[in-house]
Every structure is written in C-alpha cells, then in structure tokens.
C-alpha cells in the first residue's frame, strides 16, 4: 500500500471536500511529503485552470429576451388552460348539454301535460254539461208528461219561496216583475246530479218553462245555450246559484225570463248587504 495520498484524496483536498480528521491527516502527510505537496498544488492549479477554461460560451445577445417571451407565453398558455378547464372541459360541456336537454324535455313534456290536462278538463266539462242538458230535459219532459199540478201551486213568489225553505240547503229570490205573458205556475222539489234542487215552473204564453235552481258546485264556464230535441236549454248563474232554464219557447223570450231571475238574485244580495 502506498504511503502517498490517493488521487481521490488529492482531488477532494483541491475541491475543499475534506474536513475533520481526513483534512488533518492529509495536511500532516503533506507536511512531510514533497511529492504529494507538489501533486496537491498541481491539482489546485488544474482546478483553477479548468474553471477558467470552462467559462467558454456566452449567452447570445437576444437569447435571454427570447426565453423571457417564451416563459411569458408559457404562463399565458397555462392561465388559459386553467381558466378554460373548469368551464370548457369536455366533461363539463357534455354535462351542460345534458342539463339543457333535460330542461327542454321537461318543458316540452310539462307543456304537453298541461295542455292535455286542460283538454281533458274541457272534455269532461263538455260531457258533464251534455249530461246536465239531458237530465234537465228529461225532468222537464217528465213534468209536462205527468200533467200533474206542481207541488206548490202559486203565482205568488212570496208563497213559492217560503215553501222551498227547509227543503233545499240554499235560498233564492224570485222576480216580482216578469216579462210579458210570463207567469209563475209553482214549484217542485226535485233532484239533479243527485242533489236537491228547486224546479220553478213558469209559463210564457202557452209554453211551459222549467227553471232548475241549484248550488253552483264550482265556477262554470258562463252562460250557455244548447238545443236538445227541439227544446232550448239555457244555463246561467246568479248569486252563487246555478240556474238552468229549459223550454220550447223562443230563446229570446227564455232569455228575458233568465234576465229577470238573474236580476232578482242581485237584488237579493243587495238586501243581504
């Protein structure tokens, strides 16, 4: 084994990498070995010479500027990617498209359902009205066919109205002034749609008229006139009551009687106030 310092130790010494005991031992050896001292000196000289010689290439004048532009562009690109990714990522786009599609479908089917429901309501109301027309027609024809006297026979409204009290769960008013050739014949207690109603009997000339008075279950579509087997059925409301007049008389004259009854209900309401 050589007594001289190893090349690795000499290099570490030149590079300042020795410390502690290693450095002390190396220094002690160098103090008594001229050969190693010369080698160590040469290593240091070589190190400083390579350090100088190694500084060989300088950065081109515009290279740093180009690098800074590149760095700025890279930063901008990164910012664009960051800004775009939460909003415009493909996943988000498809997600948004899905929500829009769902909203459109919901709106479409919702609208279709509402229209369908309204059409159904109209259809039901139409069927119910047709059934009412048939029922009042049957009642009216049955009254005419029976040739029976009304349950209460009176031309006096003050007799007919009190007769109805206690028989039906509502009250109504009868007109004092009736259209020309119109007289009150009396009244019956009958049933429409399984509910107790008053059937007022009038005569317009020789035409018999039945006016069915009932509680209005819900706001109706308004006045209406229907024809059924040569009879006219007029549906109107007044004072929270539904009234259906049926007769073979001229519809204009039937309307005059309906107006008189409607006005009487208004007068009744004013009296209540």
């Amino acid at each position: 084994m050589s007594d001289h310092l190893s090349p690795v130790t000499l290099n570490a010494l030149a590079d300042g990498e020795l410390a502690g005991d290693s450095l002390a031992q190396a220094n002690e050896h160098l103090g008594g070995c001229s050969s190693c001292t010369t080698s160590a000196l040469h290593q240091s000289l070589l190190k400083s010479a390579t350090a100088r010689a190694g500084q060989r290439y300088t950065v081109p004048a515009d290279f740093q500027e180009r690098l800074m532009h590149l760095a700025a562009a890279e930063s901008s690109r990164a910012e664009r990617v960051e800004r775009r990714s939460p909003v415009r990522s493909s996943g988000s786009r498809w997600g948004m498209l899905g929500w829009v599609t769902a909203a459109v479908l919901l709106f479409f089917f919702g609208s279709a359902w509402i229209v369908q429901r309204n059409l159904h309501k109209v259809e039901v109301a139409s069927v119910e009205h047709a059934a009412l027309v048939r029922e009042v027609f049957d009642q009216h024809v049955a009254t005419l066919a029976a040739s029976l006297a009304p349950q209460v026979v009176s031309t006096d409204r003050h007799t007919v109205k009190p007769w109805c009290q206690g028989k039906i769960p509502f009250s109504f008013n009868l007109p004092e002034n009736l259209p020309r050739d119109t007289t009150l014949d009396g009244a019956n207690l009958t049933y429409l749609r399984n509910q107790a109603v008053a059937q007022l009997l009038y005569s317009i000339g020789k035409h018999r008229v039945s006016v069915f008075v009932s509680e209005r279950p819900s706001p109706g579509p308004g006045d209406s006139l229907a024809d059924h087997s040569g009879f006219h059925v007029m549906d109107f409301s007044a004072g929270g009551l539904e009234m259906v007049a049926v007769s073979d008389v001229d519809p204009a004259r039937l309307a005059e009687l309906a107006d008189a009854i409607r006005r009487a209900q208004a007068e009744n309401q004013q009296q209540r106030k």
Partner: protein
Amino acid sequence: MTLLRWKREIQESAPQTQVFEELAVPCLASLYNVAFWLSRNGADAEDLVQETFVKALRGFASFQPGSNFKAWIFRILRNTYLTSRSGLAARRTVALEEELGETHESGPVLYPEGAIDRETPELNLIRLNDRAALQAAMESLPAPLLEVILLCDVEEMKYREAATVLEIPIGTVMSRMARARTALRHLLSSPTRTPSLTSNREFRA
C-alpha cells in the same frame, strides 16, 4: 369574499412565474455554457436551454422552496440532454465505469501510482496557461468525466450537489473527478496522443 378555485390559481400563478424568473435568469449563463459544452453546438445548446426552461417552469410547483434551485434546474438540463439527439448519440457507447471495472459500492477506487503524474513536467504547467489547449483537452474528455469537471470546477458545485444533478453516488463523483483530472494531465502532457477514453461518451445516471 371567497375566490373561485381557478381564479385563485391564476392569481397565484403570476407571482410563481415571477419567482421562477428571479431564480432561473441568474442560472442562464451557466446553463447555456454547460449545454454548449455537452452538445458541442450553439443551436443545440439554445434548444436544450429553452426546453429546460419550459420544463422547469411547468414543473416549478414541484420545486421545494428553500432547496437548491441551481442543482434542480441543472438536473432538468442533464435529463433533457440525455433524451436529446446529441445525448442519445453519446449514450450509444460502452459504459466507462464498466470498462474500467469500477465498483461504487466499495467506495472510491484508488488509482495506481502511475495514474498520477507526480513528476509534474514543466510543459504541463506551461500548458495550464494555454486556455485553448486546456479547452481542447476538456473537449476530448468523455461526457461523464466532462460533466463532473463542468459542475465541480466551472460551476463550483460541491460533490453532493453534483451527485444530485447527475443522480449518482458521491463516491462515483469523486472517482470520476479523479479520472477526469488524470486524463486532463495526460492530455496536456502528450497533446498529440489520442486519448483512449474519448470514444466512450456514455452517460450513466
């Protein structure tokens, strides 16, 4: 008010870029010099440094503040070089350590006495002042030896820093340094001799 995540990140990215530039610009001259030495070509050196900058900027979030930025960016430069055209060409050769039969696990290997020019010829001392001759000798070094010279002598890195950049043990840095300086001395003392190691330019991590 709480900022949206992407707005907060954009606000944070601006100062990050600024910090990166403050750290990287002072290293530019060193990076370019080493890149030129390794690639032996100005255009390739620019490409190498440019790619290093972009990679470092993109990966700056992974840099631990307070740690050695110079070692970090030089490591990126070296890895970029290893995958570059000139780096790949250099890697096609035989392993230097394998050829010399070095074993890193057992620590630095002692060289025979003949490896050290203890006579220190006067010619050597004269040629140390010949900058061009020394640069020519350095150019003749295989890349693994040139690397340690550049990092430890030119960039004045400690062995530990060089080991970090080169991703090798400190013992390997020491042995390479010893071989590099021995090779330089031989090249300077016999300038007409073609060094046997110049054909071996493989990089090993």
